């Protein structure tokens, strides 16, 4: 990146005069992620901006940007049409303003925390010696929801390409309504409160459409490795992900079988690249 610290002013039109300006949330090698809004200030959204790369030939640069934005959007639209929980696509511009300004896509804003953050809250509490009642049970429930979400996605023929706990959000429901059980009066959230919600898969920048068991197994393998390194304390919980995944759609069992093979040899089958 030639501009290590871009401010919102470096966004392309039509975002140049947005008031208040979009807030930069994250920056990757390919894209910037902003929090802004769609049409009206009451509708928050995420803006993914892929700037042009000055070191690429302009023609190639435009083609790559266009291709990547459209492919991510296509996958997201396919998922939301098929009922997989992902952010919906609101608007996009794969061509940019014609002056080589890159392209962008606006997506639905997903409330909540990433699964990674949520699991780390629990791990931290327990390290501090705070016992969170029913934590294991509720983590197991969350693992099941992850298995089901990934299963649904694979069922419709989409592979994510970068499944990690940072690329899964836990979207809480509208309101917290417990039948009078919140009268404990303590402000410490319960395990159920921390871990409740719907699993929403995000960041389909590396996603593709595939019905091959190999690709799905690699997806699971990547997630398994990510779990092992990010949440060693929850590693045995991953068995629950696989268990529920295996029951989530026809053909899932075959993928799990394939996963064993992938584990033995690693992610790359072809041994190229």
């Amino acid at each position, binding site marked *: 990146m030639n501009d290590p610290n871009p401010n919102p002013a470096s966004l392309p039109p039509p975002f140049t005069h947005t008031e208040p300006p979009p807030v930069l949330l994250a920056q990757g090698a390919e894209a910037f992620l902003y929090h802004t809004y769609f049409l009206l200030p009451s509708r928050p959204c995420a803006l993914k901006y892929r700037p042009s790369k000055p070191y690429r030939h302009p023609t190639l640069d435009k083609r790559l940007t266009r291709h990547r934005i459209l492919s991510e959007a296509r996958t997201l639209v396919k998922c939301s049409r098929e009922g997989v929980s992902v952010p919906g696509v609101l608007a996009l*511009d794969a061509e940019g303003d014609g002056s080589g300004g890159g392209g962008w896509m606006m997506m639905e804003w997903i409330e909540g925390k990433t699964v990674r953050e949520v699991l780390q809250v629990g791990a931290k509490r327990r390290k501090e010696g705070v016992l969170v009642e029913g934590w294991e049970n509720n983590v197991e429930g969350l693992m099941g929801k992850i298995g089901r979400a990934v299963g649904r996605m694979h069922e419709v023929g989409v592979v994510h390409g970068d499944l990690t706990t940072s690329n899964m959000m836990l979207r809480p429901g509208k309101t917290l309504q417990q039948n009078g059980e919140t009268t404990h009066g303590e402000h410490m959230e319960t395990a159920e409160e921390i871990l409740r919600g719907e699993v929403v898969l995000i960041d389909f920048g590396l996603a593709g459409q595939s019905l091959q068991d190999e690709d799905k197994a690699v997806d699971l393998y990547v997630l398994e490795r990510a779990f092992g390194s990010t949440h060693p304390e929850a590693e045995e919980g991953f068995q629950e992900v696989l268990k529920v995944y295996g029951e989530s759609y026809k053909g899932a069992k075959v993928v799990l079988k394939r996963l064993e093979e992938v584990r033995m040899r690693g992610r790359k089958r072809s041994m190229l690249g």
Partner: protein
Amino acid sequence: MAELQTLHLAHLPPDLAVHVALYTEVQNAAYLRDQLLQGNQDFEYALIDASVIISTTHVLAAVFRAANDHLNKRLKSRNVHSEIVFSLGANNNIAQSLRSFGITAMTSNLLAIKLSTDPSITSLTVSQHLSTSIKGTLVEFSDANLANTADIAKIKKLYRLGGIGDDGNKGRRRRKDGSEEGSHLSDGLNDKEKGGGAERERKELEVAILGLVALRGAV
């Protein structure tokens, strides 16, 4: 009571105001359509059959897309107003989109949209011209009114989203089937889903439509 609404969409230049009027019981649709076909400059509006619009967001997303293409000087149709109607479509066939979403001789619920592409176009000039040109009842441009005029079956057909309601249910049922373990967690959510079924379906449909409008043909 109701009057023409002037909106400023997020991210668009402040001077590019959007004027929107929703009419019911329109009596002179055939005449209005003829003006468009003859290329009468005074009638340069996006005239949309409101029965194929599910919500304010739906039509405004098309306005946003057309306005952005207008600002970047890559309109595919004659002007930004026809581009709005074209942008509502899910494919690159201009004539088909104008036929499906534009005014027809039978249109009785009509959305008229005009962009202030020139400083001489103000909410006053637009509302004066509309009130003398359209024979119908002006109602508020709101989700509630569009919900009354929307023909959901027709919309699903136009966007080929026939499966949304049913498919969604199928998916949800499947989810419940496979959720014996840890289902105590999702119970709360499922209850809510059951309560707002129609509302939820409408939201799902809207999200899917916005995606198709954004992609347009690149699916």
